[in-house]
């Protein structure tokens, strides 16, 4: 299978024929265009490259009709409680993210938060995030980051955000014909390893997908990337290949992650991978610093590398448009 890595938003990646012989045509283009130098718009469509006016896809105010049949927003890594130089005011930047969401011309139906809601798993930190996000007036689905399950194996997280979940907090739901799966890969981590899903969760996922038509668009969201971004920094999930093998038969799969505090895209076969901005602080590009810790940038630049992700799904097509937009 040909892999195309698209860490540069100006790159156009092309996926050729693959040879899985499973009857699914995975020909397609992924086209990413820089948005105002700070974000990327990606459109993937099976077989045909459609080129749309950028302003249309970006949700410009001039847009006159509804673009997608399903629209949602992903936010990530709000790290409430963090107060170090990389961002001394994570409350203000999360509020800016909420303002950004509320200003979207096409209002998303719901929000996915891909973890690290809090910095230190404190009730007061969760309370603050809840209070700020309330202003979106939207249903919000959460998966935990490692910062949300620090001292209680995620008990408080599940009590607050995933009451109806299975196991350590995983669950699935359907929206407008698309199937969403929230996974937990931040617990029971083994020495020397990466993120972990575990056999119980993998078995659940396999069963969860069993009854679905192969034409059902699938969106998988989890905190740590489900593709290996940079194992030296722990940016990957040990048993993600197993999870991805269950998704091969589906025509359209989108995987949304956080954790690495920067946007990245990759297409592999039928699966589009995407990582989101943080709303709190940036982290360095893989290998570009001694470690993956919070990155201090000049104050006036901070909001250009924090942001939200807007996702639009057009029913009846294999199209899922993923648009990152920075806070400024």
């Amino acid at each position, binding site marked *: 299978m040909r892999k195309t890595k698209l860490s540069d938003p100006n790159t156009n990646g092309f996926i050729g024929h693959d040879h899985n012989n499973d009857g699914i045509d995975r020909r397609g283009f992924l086209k990413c265009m820089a948005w105002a130098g700070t974000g990327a718009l990606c459109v993937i469509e099976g077989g045909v490259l459609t080129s749309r006016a950028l302003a249309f896809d970006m949700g410009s105010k001039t847009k006159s009709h509804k673009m997608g049949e399903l629209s949602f927003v992903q936010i990530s890594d709000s790290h409430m409680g963090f107060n170090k130089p990389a961002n001394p005011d994570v409350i203000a930047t999360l509020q800016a993210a909420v303002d950004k969401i509320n200003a979207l011309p096409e209002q998303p139906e719901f929000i996915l938060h891909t973890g690290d809601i809090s910095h230190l798993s404190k009730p007061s930190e969760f309370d603050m995030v809840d209070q700020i996000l309330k202003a979106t007036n939207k249903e919000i689905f959460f998966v935990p980051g*490692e910062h949300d399950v620090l001292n209680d194996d995620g008990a408080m997280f599940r009590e607050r955000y995933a009451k109806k979940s299975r196991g350590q907090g995983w669950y699935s739901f359907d929206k407008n014909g698309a199937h969403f799966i929230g996974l937990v890969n931040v617990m029971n981590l083994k020495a020397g390893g*990466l993120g972990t899903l575990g056999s119980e969760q993998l078995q659940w996922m396999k069963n969860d997908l069993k009854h679905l038509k192969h034409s059902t668009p699938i969106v998988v969201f989890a905190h740590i990337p489900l593709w290996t971004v940079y194992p030296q920094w722990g940016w990957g999930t040990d048993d993600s290949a197993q999870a991805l093998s269950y998704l091969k038969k589906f025509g359209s799969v989108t995987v949304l992650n956080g954790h690495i505090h920067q946007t990245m895209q990759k297409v592999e076969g039928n699966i589009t991978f995407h990582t989101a901005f943080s709303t709190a602080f940036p982290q360095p590009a893989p290998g570009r610093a001694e*470690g993956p810790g919070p990155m201090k940038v000049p104050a006036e630049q901070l909001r250009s590398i924090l942001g939200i992700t807007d996702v639009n799904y057009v029913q009846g097509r294999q199209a899922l448009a993923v648009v990152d937009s920075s806070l400024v």
Partner: protein
Amino acid sequence: MTKKKLLFSGMAVVLPLALAMVLVLHPIRAKSEAAASPMEVRVDNFTFGPDTLTVPVNSTVTWVNKDDVPHTIASSDRVFKSKALDTDDKYSYTFAKVGTYAYYCSIHPKMVGKIVVQ
């Protein structure tokens, strides 16, 4: 706001804090310096330094987190485990038995270290 006012209001915050820090930190620092700090492991930039530390039996080893993100100290054999340590938080464990103790950060499991007790 004028420069003078800024400086003043800044001092008003910083001064008592600095005083408090000196009062709190001094005895601890004196103690660890007396032992020339061989029993300390610094958690910095997502690494344990030193990653292997050899100590005599009955030594107390102290880990201190110098990162902007929390870490834990978790024995691979579940002999000991700290809570999440925020910046400058410390965790100590006394090794009463000879042996090699592998440990890692349970939040960032790529971070591994070893205490050799002789």
